[in-house]
């Protein structure tokens, strides 16, 4: 598995200014993890992100959001913990 340069944890809805800013900062070697309200921006993130996009399953289920795994990897808290250990840096937006 390749190392992640920066893991961006994005809990803001796509309406929040930090959503766009996170997407503009994240690079191709980074991973964006959408949690909480951020899962509502799955489509926008998948379109704009140059690196990987992942999304937290419980927050998707809570909001009734379904997605095919093609748009983003759907993960659980265990995997979220693992991602934080694999990234050189973790930024919570």
């Amino acid at each position, binding site marked *: 598995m390749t190392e992640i340069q*920066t893991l961006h944890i994005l809990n803001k809805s796509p309406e929040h*200014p930090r959503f766009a*800013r996170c997407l*503009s*900062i994240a690079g191709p070697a980074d991973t964006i993890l959408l949690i909480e309200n951020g899962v509502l921006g799955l489509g926008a993130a998948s379109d704009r992100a140059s690196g990987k996009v992942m999304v937290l399953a419980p927050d998707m289920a809570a909001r009734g959001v379904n997605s095919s795994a093609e748009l983003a990897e759907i993960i659980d808290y265990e995997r979220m913990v693992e991602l934080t250990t694999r990234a050189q*840096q973790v*930024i*919570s937006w």
Partner: protein
Amino acid sequence: MSTLIVIDQPPYGSWAGREALDMAFSLAAFDQPVSLLFCGAGVNWLRKGQEPGTIRQKSVEKNLAAAPIFGVEALLADGDDCKRYGLEAEQLLDGVTLVQADSQLFTNYSHTAFAG
């Protein structure tokens, strides 16, 4: 291990910026390298001539002016956001460095955090 503390919310209407300043000054007090980045509406912290006594809050202008003495390495402000808020160079506090808040900038820091 240099830290970037980011302030993207404007002063006085909420406390996130003050709490970010406290984080930066605490790091400096422990001799940890730290810089402050003001972006988005947060650039308004850097406007000269703030008089928050009118709304019963304390000004941070003196704290920010003293930042280098306290050990904060740099006060960075996104140039585009300063322009958007009509902040010309003369209106900015002394000691502010204009930057592009892009992915390149963030790679210079091993730790980046918001206060909230």
